[in-house]
């Protein structure tokens, strides 16, 4: 297996995918964060009629990755379900789709998050609060100072200025010791990595891998543009 890598975390080669997933080729492992399934219907229940297709859109992309990469392990880094009642609102077709998807992967792992401290049973896979694989730790929320850690939770985005415009997209944030994944869910918004909530967890010098126009582009922190306020 040949590949290009852009990040080395505790000696482990990791590859960011333009979809927002992370690939650990040596372990045939696919990592995604913050699916937020049924976020649309959570808003609808409060009278905000967002289109209901976010679960379907997210599962489509996830299924495409599983098809293309045929991983042996999938790790969902928490906040996979938008709230406790998400499974109950999920459309029957989407329920079947998700079950089928977890059934096609040998080891499917649901890491718990603040939105889904108790992910729904019945979708297959194992539920864990966190996970250690080789030298790496997988958890929903980054722990300050932890090294060799992959997390989600913060939905990092970054903005760069190129002549004539500002491009703001989801990104991986990486400082050599910690890797924060972008949100994978169709309706998951973003928080600028220059916000102290993100940058405060990272080393002074970090880089982002920005997902734009079907590719991944690497930028150092010095090139990033803050959001207002």
């Amino acid at each position, binding site marked *: 297996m040949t590949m290009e890598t852009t990040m080395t975390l505790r000696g482990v080669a990791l590859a960011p995918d333009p979809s927002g997933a992370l690939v650990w080729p040596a372990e045939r492992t696919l990592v995604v964060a913050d699916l937020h399934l049924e976020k649309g219907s959570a808003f609808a229940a409060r009278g905000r009629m967002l289109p209901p*297709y976010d679960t379907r859109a997210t599962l489509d992309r996830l299924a495409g990755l599983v098809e293309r990469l045929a991983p042996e392990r999938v790790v969902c880094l928490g906040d996979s379900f938008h709230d406790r009642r998400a499974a109950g609102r999920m459309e029957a077709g989407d329920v079947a789709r998700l079950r089928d998807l977890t059934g096609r992967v040998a080891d499917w792992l649901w890491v718990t998050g603040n939105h889904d401290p108790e992910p729904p049973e019945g979708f297959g896979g194992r539920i864990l609060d966190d996970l250690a694989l080789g030298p790496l730790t997988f958890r929903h929320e980054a722990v300050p100072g932890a090294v060799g850690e992959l997390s989600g939770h913060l939905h990092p985005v970054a903005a760069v200025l190129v002549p004539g415009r500002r491009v703001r997209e989801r990104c991986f944030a990486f400082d050599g010791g910690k890797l924060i994944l972008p949100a994978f869910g169709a309706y998951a918004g973003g928080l600028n990595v220059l916000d102290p909530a993100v940058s405060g967890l990272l080393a002074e010098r970090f880089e982002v891998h920005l997902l734009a*126009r079907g590719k991944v582009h690497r930028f150092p922190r010095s090139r990033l543009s803050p959001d207002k306020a």
Partner: protein
Amino acid sequence: MPDLPSPLLPANVQGWFRSRGWAPHPHQLAMVEAAEAGDSALLIAPTGGGKTLAGFLPSLIDLAERPRDGLHTLYISPLKALAVDIQRNLEDPIAEMRLPIRTETRTGDTPESKRRRQRAHPPQILMTTPESLALMIAYADAAALFRHLRCVIVDELHALAGTKRGDLLALGLARLARLAPRARRVGLSATVAEPAQLLAWLSRTGRAEGGDVRLVTGRAGASAEVEILTSRERLPWAGHMAVHALKEVYQRIRAHRTTLVFVNTRAQAELVFQELWRLNDDSLPIALHHGSLAAEQRRKVEAAMAAGKLRAVVATSSLDLGIDWAAVDLVVQIGAPKGASRLVQRIGRANHRLDEPSRALLVPANRFEVLECRAAVDAVAAMSLDGERPRPGGLDVLAQHMLGMACAEPFRPDDLYDEVVCAAPYAGLARDEFDDVLDFVATGGYALGNYERFHRLKMREDGRMAVAGPAVARQYRMNVGTITQEAMLRVRLNRGPVLGEVEEHFIQGLTPGHTFVFAGQLLKFLGIREMEAQVAKGGSGEPKVPAYAGGRLPLTTALADRVRAMLADPAQWPGLPEDVQEWLRLQRWRSVLPAHDGLLVESFPKAGKRFLVVYAFEGRNAHQTLGMLLTRRMERMGCGPLGFVATDYVLAVWSLRTPKDMDGLFDQDMLGDDLEAWMDESSMLRRTFRNVALITGVIDRRHPGQEKSGRQVTFSSDLIYDVLRKHDPGHVLLRATRADAAGGLTDVRRLSDFLARVKGRITHKDLDRISPLAVPVILEIGRERVDGSATDELLEQAAADLVAEAMPELGSPGNSQGRLAL
């Protein structure tokens, strides 16, 4: 005018006119007559003809003769400031005639306590805005409030009709017609090309042939004296700032009492203002006025102007509406006016005394603008104004209105449909379209049916739709209105005063230390603090000028047609400056002149590339779209298109090879799949969708003071757009978006008319070098910012430039894309 007592006017009103030394204008009496007959009326009159008083006079008379409590007359203005201004101006005649009338204003700035009091004890005359009316009719007590209403006055109707705010107001009037069946409607308008459209808008039937609206026309003022500046300097080939002519403009300012200098964009306003002050050896009081300056600053300029303290004001369309200044004796238009109606309104700002002619000076900034200015002057002299076909009302506005009506009281869908089609913008609304929108308001209306259990509206057993709970009404009241604009940031002078507001994206393009020109001064950007851009005076380096979205209006169809006719007919050239005549003669010799009804396409080599210049004259927006479509097609033809640039007059495309089949290249079918595909990807459609999502309440407006904290995650309408487009492409929100994008900008319709017109009439000249007429557009190349698809390469280039510098300790440089097989 005969100073005879009019039987129409009661004694105290007549006495008031006499005490002022005035006699009522015939159109003012005609308005009173219409009211006596119980008819609605549309008054079309130039500024300064006592138009506002003509609108109010019948109400003043009625209340003088039959004093009573209760809301009698509702006045609706497109501007909050205008409502306040009119209320102040009306107080004088009311006091002087000793009329028992209370007048008040109600706008977004009116405190909640005063609003409550106004609903319980309304004044006889209330001045308000379309948004405030929408809120008032969405309360359960609306029927009681409007029970005694006798008259609704809509001011500046020409500026409201055809916009989404106009749609909202038309729907509000349709509801008022039910609450107050005896209320007449009065429309006040500037001169327009198609009065029938405004008659339909004002009619209770929503149709021009409704017969319930009288047309009253004010006396036209003395005809305007319009001159085109023939500069002693050589005319520039391109550019829009007319810097070459400002010395002569300054001389004219010196020679007049008060001059209004109109420009087309705020960026132009800043530059022209700076340049005039550079030339201002006499330190004449010259001020600046545009929509981005702080309201306080604008008020100051307006007050100084009214007091006769200024010799000139450089202004954008922020001064097109409303406020009257009699002292102005010269209007200067810098750059081409872009439309005849617009020119008439601007000229009308000078000399409001109708017996004196208005004087105006047009200052073309380049050679094509000379032709356009000449065409505009001819059009004004021929009284031929630009007409636009009315566009159907927005479905997003209808959705908002439906929710508001449910907040007022439960309704039967059949009844609401009958009411809505009486509003002119919705006169052609099909019932199934109405039902789709209602379905969206009630449950989202998505093809995936799992939202059935979530309701904003519920069908009751009696067949009426009602709001599902008080939270729905609260949400409606937070989100009412149709004004959606890009987020603005205040600009504050180093912890001192606020200078105004600029678009957020402009500030985000600056880094601390950058300089830019704003509010007439050179400023240094310090940083963003507490939602404000902090700046200091001075600084060095090449300044950026704020680039404002939507600042550029495209050339109107009617004016474009005149420009084409003039180019094709050498008999019309003698009035043009010698530079321009020589330019056209050279074009005729080296190539050919564009025919009036055909299309000239030139091709020539330059700098190793092949250029294709298309003389379409359809305005910049239409040319941008045409450029996108042509390059797609040239790609398929194997011509290797590399880029394009559009002006108001011409489109230039450069490529590796020249296409051979011109008829095929311009075939009408390009408006099919290519257009759909392009529109779906374009940022224009995403922006439009965002507005639709805001207006329909799918996403919330951000209100000042409740901005999201940094920690909160922002929810972008782009995410919704992408998901909806893929999974429910026929959804009513997307239909509303496409209709807006196609109709609101009019460029797609223009393009399809254009392609039909030139079919079979394309002249292709293959030249060995650039033609004279092509020079201006070729000069534009490089001035335009790179757009759209080029972002990809820019990103890669930016990334590549920086790889070496970027943290080598964090991994190997190189392409960061991870394409891998597991």
